[in-house]
């Protein structure tokens, strides 16, 4: 265990897997210089052959990654969430659908690293948090690490996984610190939620950047004698429904904190599941704490109103307590 930044943990995960498996390579815009940070040092270690600077052609190189994966390589593609719209067709029509429509002939071990910058004045064109879109589309595994250890462990699992994966790397977490196992055998499985804090009164499901905010809210509520269980699903596809339903079975109350825009969000989905499958356990209205349904405004005075905050989560917890 060493204390590491979330961003470093991502890089460690990539480097370890690249050392083990020569089929893994990284491609993206300016990845050699690691403009986005998490690829730092990789070019020095792995050289031009395995760290590829691409032209500004997202649809082209997203699709090239699919093709390379289809014939046996294990590409990692770096991009920002907001640039995925440009390469959307290859993500949906090829990466997501190819295996199914070819009856299982295609195995596509490709990881798309989608950095989500938001909260720092990046404005509408650079602040997307689009995992709910890909949840609806299907066929892609959707990973949203909430801690540095998970950043590393889920990255390693993503690279070893034989399906296309999108790693949504939350920009508000990149600088967070935490203990990260050094063991190169350490991985975090997909589909197993992380109960970050046990509690008995209210269940808070927190996604990506909401994780530290939910933990802070829980801490705060503890002072008032309210016991909050905080669950990070870690992967949204596959989703560990079980853990969430069990928790609601225990607490009877659900708050979902999700930095995505609220309409058709991951929060919506989780609430729809609980409202159908754990309805009789619920003792109070479920609460959605998601981003306001607006494009991201540049001005800090407006932007700060958009995302879920600890205060917002606290308010919602209190609402569920009536």
């Amino acid at each position, binding site marked *: 265990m060493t204390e590491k930044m979330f961003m470093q943990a991502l890089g460690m995960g990539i480097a370890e897997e690249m050392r083990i498996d020569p089929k893994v390579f990284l491609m993206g815009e300016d990845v050699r210089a690691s403009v986005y940070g998490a690829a730092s040092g990789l070019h020095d270690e792995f050289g031009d052959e395995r760290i590829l600077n*691409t032209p500004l052609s997202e649809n*082209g190189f997203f699709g*090239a990654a699919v093709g390379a994966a*289809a014939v046996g390589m294990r590409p990692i593609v770096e991009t920002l969430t907001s640039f995925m719209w440009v390469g959307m067709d*290859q993500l949906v029509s*090829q990466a997501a659908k190819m*295996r199914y*429509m070819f009856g299982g002939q*295609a195995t596509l071990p490709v990881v798309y690293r989608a950095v989500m910058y938001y909260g720092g004045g990046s404005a509408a064109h650079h602040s997307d948090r689009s995992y709910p879109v890909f949840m609806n589309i299907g066929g892609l595994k959707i990973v949203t690490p909430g801690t540095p250890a998970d950043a590393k462990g889920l990255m390693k699992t993503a690279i070893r996984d034989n399906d296309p994966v999108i790693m949504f790397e939350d920009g508000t977490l990149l600088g967070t610190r935490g203990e990260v196992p050094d063991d190169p055998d350490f991985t975090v499985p997909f589909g197993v939620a992380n109960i970050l804090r046990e509690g008995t009164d209210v269940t808070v499901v927190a996604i990506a950047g909401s994780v530290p905010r939910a933990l802070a809210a829980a801490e705060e509520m503890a002072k008032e004698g309210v016991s909050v269980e905080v669950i990070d699903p870690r992967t949204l596809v596959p989703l560990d429904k079980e853990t969430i339903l069990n928790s609601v079975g225990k607490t009877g109350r659900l708050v979902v904190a999700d930095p995505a825009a609220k309409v058709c969000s991951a929060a919506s989905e989780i609430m729809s599941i609980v409202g159908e499958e754990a309805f009789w356990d619920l003792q109070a209205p479920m609460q959605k704490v998601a981003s306001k349904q607006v494009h991201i405004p540049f001005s800090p005075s407006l932007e700060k109103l958009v995302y879920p905050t600890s205060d917002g989560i606290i308010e919602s917890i209190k609402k569920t307590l009536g």
Partner: protein
Amino acid sequence: MTTNISKDLLMLMLERMWRIRHFELKLTEMYNAGEVGGVHLYIGQEAVAVGACAALKDSDYIAGNHRSHGHPIAKGANLKKAMAEIFGRIDGYCKGKGGSMHLADFSVGILGESGIVASSVPVATGAALASKLEGKDFVSAVFFGDGASNQGACHESMNLASVWDLPVLFICENNQYAVTTSYKDTVAVEHISDRAQAYNMPGILVDGQDAIAMYEATAQAVERARNGEGPTLIEALTYRFEDHSLGLEKIRKSEYREESEIDEWRLRDPLDLLTKSIVDSGTATPAECDAVSANAHAEVEEAAEFARNSPFPDESELYKDMFASDMPVV
């Protein structure tokens, strides 16, 4: 055209072209009988895929589009599995999940047909990238239409392939129309192959009705690719003899092309041209050529019978193949 292609290869080309032709004719018959749904026929364009694939090995890859039976058959697909797929049956290439537009056979390098126009162009480029990264000697080839050439995916892939010297062949089948729209109204240059200049790669204009010419142009491009000299754009001038698709008959009525134009192109039927070459050069007798056709016809009939008798996939198949790992999807 005189040629020094071996008899075996010429006869193989003829065989595959007849397989495609009979396959499509059989589908037409079965479509009219209500046995299968709408499909995009390759009739008239057989020389393109067959000529090109004759220059490829099994270990090379191809990817295709919505006009989707010619490419896989040209690359050696099994007719039974192809037909069963079009019938939506469990013994089809994709267990019935793909259908006509998504035939694929990874075991002989068929990376799959694609319903979204131009969407397999980046994929084929990626297969070539793998070849280069691993120092393998396989190449990949992608078939797309004149209409498809206007997609950004083509620009991005051709540029990428050129700057990285990837062993990929961009084979544009210019059959003159995208559904009802002439390429003259949508492509700003005279020849699509002229666009190769914008990517610093050779652009070759080929008579797409002539299988031998296609073979030769492709063989050249394959050689360049295997030598690490990068991609080539081949424009094959060809024509679809039938409607855009079975099922879009009403579009014929819009008269986007003259009967006389269709008739003229039919005079250059790729099967006639290849047969004539073979016979004229003394490579084989007319009887031998007829036998090839008859044989292909029999294979197609067998394939249809096989497809008819294959069961539909059952409910247990529904979620399978969404993911490689066995995980609950929802």
